[in-house]
């Protein structure tokens, strides 16, 4: 394994870890549902970045297809969860102050 490959992986993976931590912090500290939701999505983006970094095999070899497939799965699950949570939040708001 060349040094260049390792640096690229650590750069991407490190950014992913930082995103996970930022999201986790925001999720724990802020009370509003919308902020928590955005925090979860930021964490998800960090996880995808880590997976993509693990899949990277250098510029002239094919990337590992399995983490890439996992990222696609993850995006779909994240979108579904976000949509469901937004709908729940909207309904909670409606019930909190009926017009």
């Amino acid at each position, binding site marked *: *394994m060349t040094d260049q490959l*390792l640096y690229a*992986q*650590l750069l991407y*993976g*490190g950014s992913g*870890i*930082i995103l*996970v*931590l930022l999201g*986790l*912090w925001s999720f*724990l*500290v802020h009370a509003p549902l919308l902020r928590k939701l955005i925090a979860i999505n930021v964490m998800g983006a960090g996880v995808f970045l*880590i997976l993509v*970094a*693990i*899949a990277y*095999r250098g510029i002239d070899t*094919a990337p*590992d*297809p*399995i983490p*890439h*497939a996992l990222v*696609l*799965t993850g*995006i*779909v*699950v994240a*979108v*579904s*969860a976000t*949509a*469901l949570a*937004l*709908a*729940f939040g*909207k*309904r909670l708001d409606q019930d909190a102050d009926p017009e």
Partner: protein
Amino acid sequence: MIRPLEHILIPLGLIAVGGLLGWSFFLAVTGEAGDRLASVALARVPDSGVSNPVTSVLLNFRAYDTLLELAVLLSALLGIWSLGAAGSGFQPAASILDGMVAGFVPLLILSAGYMLWVGAYAPGGAFQAGALLGAAGVMLALAGHRNAGLPCESRLRLLVALGVFVFTMTGLLLMVLGNGFLTYPPGLAKWLILIIETAATLAIGATLAAAYLGGRPAAHPTTGETA
């Protein structure tokens, strides 16, 4: 004022989690894990019926994952629908935006078709194509089309269930014919994957657009249509 939980415990915990993540990531990247799954998967790609490794993993080697993924999308939509009807939607768009939307939506549908087809040998596939279709629906909803271009509720229910239905039926049919569940016979793999991906694309696009509406679609989809 220093609150101990927010200013000391949580940052310390985050540093610990970060250290653990970083350490395990470093080990995963540098360590020699022996035979990696990637080499096994890449070696079998020619047998999978498609030449794009990611599509072959999604639709052939780990087709279960993809089936359950579609089920997750479907159940999220059912959850959204169970919360009540969608809101009244947006105002009909002014003529310039409406004209732009009328130009862009066919382009999005065309690109979705291209994405679906190209997924066999290049990056692309059902999820990307479905996302483009969903984007077309969101665009229509933003321009004031009340049901985002989706059909009436009874047909929409069939449409959003299409992906899971076709996927499961293909699997069961293969089981009856003597293969395993979703174990494609080599000659047919390409066409089975294309059929499943087409159904999945339509279902994903419809599900995303319907989820954006935020509730069960209105009974009279014509409201707000300009055509």
